[in-house]
């Protein structure tokens, strides 16, 4: 299984390297959302600071949603996904490895850009730490839940708004606990409870989401 994982990771990295520019598209989209937010508020520092953390969470969430399309589409198009079904390695394992790779290449750049984006929205000084922690725990969950949705719609041509509709209810708890933890911290309360809940959610998602996504792929391909 580790040999298969390594092979898949190397292949994904090689493919990614050939289209290096694509890796920054989610980060660029998050930046665009941030810019639009700032412009809608007229750039007013007093108005932006209280909403900076929620706005950043939304920007990261939307960027992840857009990136979901590339999770399985490339492999579905060139027939690799059918090879996955036939592989001697368990399908959930392949899904988990692919999702991790996808998170590392699409969400991680956005995470690294977050401090810079936070400055654009005048995020209050103390909140950056909690925000980064909540994003670090939350974005993998979003990727894993998104993998289930992407697997359900992998066969479809123009699934755009349907993917967003399917993903939104699943994303609600992550967004609520993520943005909520920062809100808790800003009110002087301890955000550890919310962050621990997100960590627990992450563990559950790592175990269950690949299983659900694998079942969905079998349904879509079979």
């Amino acid at each position, binding site marked *: 299984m580790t040999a298969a994982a390594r092979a898949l990771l190397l292949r994904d990295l090689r493919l990614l390297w050939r289209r290096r520019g694509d890796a920054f598209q989610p980060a660029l989209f998050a930046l665009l959302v941030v810019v639009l937010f700032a412009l809608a508020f007229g750039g007013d520092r007093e108005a932006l600071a209280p909403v900076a953390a929620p706005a950043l969470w939304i920007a990261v969430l939307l960027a992840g949603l857009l990136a979901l399309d590339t999770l399985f589409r490339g492999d579905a198009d060139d027939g690799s996904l059918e090879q996955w079904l036939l592989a001697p390695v368990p399908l959930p394992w392949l899904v988990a490895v692919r999702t991790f790779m996808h998170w590392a290449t699409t969400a991680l750049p956005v995470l690294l850009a977050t401090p810079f984006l936070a400055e654009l929205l005048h995020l209050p000084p103390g909140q950056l730490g909690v925000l980064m922690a909540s994003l670090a725990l939350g974005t993998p969950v979003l990727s894993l839940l998104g993998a289930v949705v992407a697997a359900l*719609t992998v066969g479809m041509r123009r699934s755009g708004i349907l993917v967003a509709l*399917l993903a939104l*209810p699943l994303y609600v708890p992550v967004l*609520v606990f993520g943005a*909520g933890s920062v809100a808790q911290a800003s009110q002087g309360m301890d955000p550890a409870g919310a962050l621990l809940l997100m960590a627990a959610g992450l563990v559950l998602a790592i175990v269950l989401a690949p299983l659900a996504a694998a079942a*969905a792929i079998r349904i*879509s391909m079979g």
Partner: protein
Amino acid sequence: MNPLLRWFHQLGSPPTFDRFAARWAPWCHAGALVLLAWGTWLALFGVPADYQQGDSFRILFIHVPAAWMSMFVFGVMALYAAIAMVWHIKLCEILAMACAPVGAAFTVVTLATGSIWGKPMWGTWWDWDPRLTTELVLLFLYLGVMGLYHAIDDRRAAARAAGLLAIVGVALLPVIRYSVVWWNSLHQGQTIRMFGESSIDPSMVAPLWIMVGATKLWFAGSLLVRARADNLRRETGKDWVRRLAEGTR
């Protein structure tokens, strides 16, 4: 073979189910209408006005049964989907997908009546309180299942995919509710309760349970008709459908 088991197996055959649904659906709806009429009469005229809320609390008799049904139908949908997935029973796929529009309808009623009830009570048409927010997310889940079912061409794959989504949804629903309750307590310090401080008057119990029974019976009727329509759509071109269609003219 056990007669009940045999009846259950026979029901899975499309023409048998069509006959069963065509026969029983009108009775379910008729019975539901009788109960609805009785319950509505009691709710509007039989129960005294509430001490604090005046007559607006009469909306409770639709809002609460609709809210309970919106949750109940989602559970039933996920259950049918799970049975279909494990035992590969085609009828259960059809029943699961037939649940979705009915559940969505009850969710819309819950949201609308909640909003209308909220205006005289809170002074606003909408509030992001945990119950209404959860209902809104539930509506999106229903719409997602319906959208997915109609987006995939192969009916069986579509039912299985939408069924999987329903199962994932039912697993996440408690998490969603908990997250919204937690978030609400964070921002307001206390949750607004629909019933206020007054306890439920004994005279309110009867109309409430009548309406609950009415909505359940209605759901059964609608489920049968919608499943019948889907069954006919899937089996179109078969001989029994042709004979049935020509016989009805």
